[in-house]
């Protein structure tokens, strides 16, 4: 005769830590995913803002970026990152300063990946450190996500 006394309690005690860990993982991985999406959206928006501000077209009617396009892209990247400060494992200004921001004229070649841009383009490539929350015990206190945004003038 086998006794099942206490089997449900035992199973609960064994499963409980696993369930609590699952809950922590859902919350922290969700927050990481949200933070990564915010970092990428900040880069996208900054590149669009910079590329939408164009200088007077050249004599031939060709589109030209404003002379301060890089500066504007970096500034708006920082402004938008600052709105997600609670997700960042670093200072928004420092992250924006360390970002690789470049403005290319039509026909410019990106030294980062060799891409050739047919139109005037602003490109942002940044490494954004995000807080890893309770997952930090296993994966370190910060997770680096890559934000890459390219916007072309139209």
């Amino acid at each position, binding site marked *: 005769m086998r*006794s*099942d*006394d*206490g*089997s*449900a*309690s035992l*199973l*609960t005690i064994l*499963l*409980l830590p696993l*369930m*609590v860990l*699952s*809950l922590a993982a*859902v*919350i922290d991985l*969700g*927050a990481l*995913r*949200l933070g990564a*999406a*915010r970092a990428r*959206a900040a880069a*996208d*928006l900054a590149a*669009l*803002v910079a590329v*939408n*501000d164009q200088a007077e077209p050249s004599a031939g009617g060709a589109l030209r970026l404003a002379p301060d396009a890089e500066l*504007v892209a970096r500034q*708006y990247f920082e*402004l*938008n990152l600052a*709105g997600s400060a609670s997700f960042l494992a670093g200072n928004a200004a420092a992250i924006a300063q360390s970002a690789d921001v470049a403005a290319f004229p039509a026909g410019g070649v990106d030294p980062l990946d060799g891409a050739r841009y047919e139109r005037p383009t602003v490109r942002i490539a940044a490494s954004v450190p995000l807080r890893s929350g309770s997952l930090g015990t296993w994966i370190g206190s910060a997770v680096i996500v890559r934000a890459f945004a390219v916007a072309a003038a139209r």
Partner: protein
Amino acid sequence: MDEGAVTLESTLALTLLVPILFAVLQFGGALQRWSAQDAIAVQAARQAAELGGDSAELRLAIEQALRSSRIDPGGVTISVEPATVGWREPIRVRLRSEAQIAIPFLLTTSMPLSSSAIARGELAR
């Protein structure tokens, strides 16, 4: 007869496990909603920059976007600062709402969800 003991054990087990299961679902849902709200804020900031500030058209577009993401616009506070912008001036769109978290046997609370995006005025006045 162990029937009573098994029922009691199962009840205790469910009392512990059900709240965790609900918490996973509720927090997951809230984060998904937050993500949708973030995307709407970015889109709204771009549109506000094109329109030169706050307008009925902008608010209607935000409300439609919220509805299509299954978020009740009535529960979302929309702010556009400043209300009017000129060319090359920054404009911020902020969306604030609260996600209700109801975990059986444990707690019922609300989680504040705040989204904001800053674009640059594109309208020459």
